[in-house]
């Protein structure tokens, strides 16, 4: 099953898989959202949008529409 950042529950971690960077803002990559890096879901606003994540040590909030584009492997 295809798992994305948006599927993480609060406190869960994952590793970013390769993704097509076409629709991802460059700024997000510059903040450390790159394949192989670890992410953790910290908080979610109501309706799970936006999401507050720790990506590679950077604390960021992004909208669900972008989170849906980033595939991950869950760390259990």
């Amino acid at each position, binding site marked *: 099953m295809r798992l994305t950042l948006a599927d993480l529950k609060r406190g869960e971690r994952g590793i970013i898989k390769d993704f097509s960077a076409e629709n991802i803002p*460059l700024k997000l990559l510059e903040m450390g959202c790159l394949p192989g890096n670890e992410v953790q879901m910290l908080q979610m606003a109501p309706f799970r949008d*936006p999401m507050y994540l720790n990506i590679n*040590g950077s604390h960021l*909030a992004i909208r669900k529409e*972008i989170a849906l584009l980033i595939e991950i492997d869950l760390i259990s």
Partner: protein
Amino acid sequence: MAKQINVALIGNPNTGKTSVFNQLTGLNQKVGNYPGITVEKKEGICKLPRGLKAHILDLPGTYSLNASSLDENVVIELLLNKSDKDYPDVAVVVSDVENLKRNLLLFTQIKDLGIPTILVINMADRMERKGISLDVDLLEERLKTKVTLVSARKNTGIDELKKAIINYRHISDEPCVNASIIAPEYFDRLRKAFPKQSLYKLWLVITQDVNFGNINRNEISSSDLFDTKSHTELKQLQHKETILRYQFINGVLKETMKVDASSAKDLRSRLDRVLTHKIWGYAIFFGILLLIFQAIYSWSSYPMDLIDETFAFLSEWTKTTLPAGAFTNLIAEGIIPGLGGIVIFIPQIAFLFFFISILEETGYMSRVVFLMDRIMRKFGLSGKSVVPLVSGTACAIPAVMATRNIESWKERLITILVVPFTTCSARLPVYLIIIALVIPDRAFWGFNLQGLTLMLLYLLGFGVAIGSAWILNAILNIKNRSHFVIEMPNYKMPMGKNIAINVVEKTKSFVFGAGKIILAISIILWVLASYGPGDNFNKAEEIVTSEYSQNTQISEVELEEEIASFKLRNSYIGIMGRGIEPVVAPLGYDWKIGIAIISSFAAREVFVGTLATIYSVGSDEEETIKNRMAAEINPILGGPLFTFASGVSLLLFYAFAMQCMSTLAIVKRETNTWKWPVLQLVVMTLFAYFVALVAFQLLK
């Protein structure tokens, strides 16, 4: 004496760059604008040992040299233009020890431009608490530069940084990442086409639209020595570059930095759990807003009363002390009341800026963005619109500029268009004086009624801003993707020095900016009110005296007042005012308010000063502005002019009308067309007139 060393302070947002700047320069700084654009330019002088001096330029915060906003463009344009007078001899990159990995991305880019670059690792005092240890010597070796550990908060490491700045000539300008390996063939061709230029500079010029000395983008793309890559290909290369830089950084940090997570005490996650909570988060946010507005109202009332009385006294004192004549009158009736009209707002504006800078400094503002994004999007806005909307309560001008970090053009445009509805500090004077006149000073459920009214007006401003955003969202047909990304900085105790400097700077620029306009307008008004055409004005005394000659009841004082008011009615301003009276009468105003409204189109805060000038021309008594207004009689309906109905009508008019030339100018600059500011002016003012009309007719 040696020449000043040019230092550019660069860094990611939230790294405490401004704190470092404040520590280096103290109060020895000035804030201006970059020529032609409205990006704030902060510079200062830093005294170094051995009698040397450094000119420090605090550049806007940026995450990388790939600009996505006007503010970030400033950084790149400066770093690419060797002939700029501010081109740095040495760059100081400020980083935050907790986000070192991300901060180093920018560092490596600047280093690759061949500029000597000092790395400042700020917030070093937090290392122990976070379980971080660093091998600084090895880090210096790997990054080929000087690294200084600094705590701007504790004021440590600043002397070491100053020493590093003096010795900047010893810092290697060798790059640490060879970006050309992302596309060797392409970079090879670049090198051949422009052998004299730095490769990395060329690459930056190609990937973004910036001015670059003698070579501009078009020259490069028109050069047929190589074909320029497509936008998508360039973007892919930028991705590759980013990955390459992170590989380098990860390698370096693996060797030099150890994080012992077990010793880290995480206050952040505990605070976040409450402050971004689905229910508590919102409750706390509204609680904070309520507290701020109550505080602004009740705390500042004491200094404001004092200022009001002082100016009334000054005016009276001038009149009795200086020799009588036109010049004394100008000072006592024109200039002093006009100045009083601006000085009186200093307490409130200072409090407002004080609270806003605390919200920003602590990192709380980002949590509000996070909480509000989803809700704001329903109205076509972004979570990031909250910051402009909140800072719009200080002034719409910085608020319009604060929209620059909103990624989607549509969301940004809507934010710009609705921001002037928020209650800016220039409206405060008008609100305060009218509230004091028409709303009883009583407690209601423990809250002061006047304070509640003020809060209601603020909410109304927000409400209308959001409502009109919703309408604009439905009307405007602009399609674009949002790339919403926001950093959630760690919580920090606000630094007193930063807040103090911010409050002083902002208040100063408000007072001097608005002060000039107000002073000029009050002098013009005084002249127009003190002189008039024809016999009605010049022979006022005879006309009034003969009119009342049969009436023996009238006292000397009353007769004087009659003459003064007759003169005012027949002065230039009286004639103009009575000309427009039919337009404002349905709203419950007399011609004096009409004049005040017209002069308010220069800037709203002129309102009180205008009335102060007009009224003091008409009276000799030592009175405060408020008492004079309370005594005014409605010329048509009789009874007091300022009733509940006319007061509410006036409050609503000021709440909605677009009466600020500076805001219109800024909107024009930020949207690049007159279309949007003209739309704001017409729609907002018509709406204000309509609402005020309905309110007065219903309430009277």
